[in-house]
């Protein structure tokens, strides 16, 4: 025991830190590559519901999001159910057709991801779906979380 103590006291222990910037840079590049910066600010509240039999979407660039949920009003209040596409709330449901048609021209393999609040009513959703049908955007995805 005494021997051990002597040895420890004698030698200075230092971790070489010269490689640290390299390690940090590597991590940095990893996160830079994987980051998807949040593009939209949500103007509606979307609490996703849960489901068991779901599939992953690997190709994120095919996705276009449609948000449906109660509108966020100033002062933490919630209003009527509204539809949000990109950055703006779409008041006129009929306008969705042209919006989606344009997106479909840019990305023919478009998948429309519907992110709907769990308490929103089905009626508004079906109106949106009718518009999607008319715009020929047939591939949709009901966004849900995995059931724990």
């Amino acid at each position: 025991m005494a021997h051990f103590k002597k040895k420890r006291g004698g030698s200075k222990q230092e971790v070489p830190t010269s490689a640290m910037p390299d390690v940090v840079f590597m991590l940095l590049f990893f996160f830079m590559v994987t980051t998807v910066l949040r593009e939209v600010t949500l103007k509606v509240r979307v609490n996703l519901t849960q489901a068991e039999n779901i599939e992953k979407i690997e190709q994120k660039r095919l996705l276009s999001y449609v948000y449906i949920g109660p509108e966020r009003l100033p002062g933490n209040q919630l209003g009527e159910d509204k539809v949000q596409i990109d950055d703006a709330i779409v008041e006129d449901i009929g306008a969705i057709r042209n919006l989606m048609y344009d997106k479909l021209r840019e990305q023919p393999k478009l998948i429309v991801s519907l992110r709907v609040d769990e308490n929103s009513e089905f009626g508004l959703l079906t109106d949106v779906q009718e518009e999607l049908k008319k715009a020929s955007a047939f591939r949709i995805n009901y966004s849900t979380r995995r059931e724990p």
Partner: protein
Amino acid sequence: MLLKKRERDSAEINGSSMADIAFLLLIFFLVTTTINVDTGIGLVLPPPLQEDQEPPPIKERNLMNILVNAEGRVLMDDQPYQLTEVKERLKEFIDNPNNDPNLSESPDMAIVSVKTQRQTPYRIYVDMLDEVMGAYKELRDAASRANYGVPFGALQDNSPQYEQITDMYPKKISIAEPGDN
């Protein structure tokens, strides 16, 4: 003179703060990153019917009508069921192992129609759809295990085996226009 001076103090950039800068950037990206894989229930909508076009004829026995009301009560072909029973009932309908004349002729002809009300909360609708997807997933899994010894999820996308299983059990799900009652 000049040359000598240059040689003496070699110009070097102080690199000790590099790590700090890198750390700062790293932390920024760590905070802003959202590594969330998008998951959800995939569906393909049918093209809209033309005005003068009649809906295609479907044999009554091949069609399973599921009605869900806003309270989450389920009617399958006019019989009330619990939501938890839907999956088993659907599997029986699609597969029809005993060749019941009231159930679908063959799995690839079975059509599941889901109808609900406008007032139904989205949660209930997705729960219902989840059960339908679950029934198809279990049937496909069983078929895949029987034929290839691996679960359906392990098959390569668009491989011949994958195509065969999806041809055996095509997901024919129709979302009907919501009714008022």
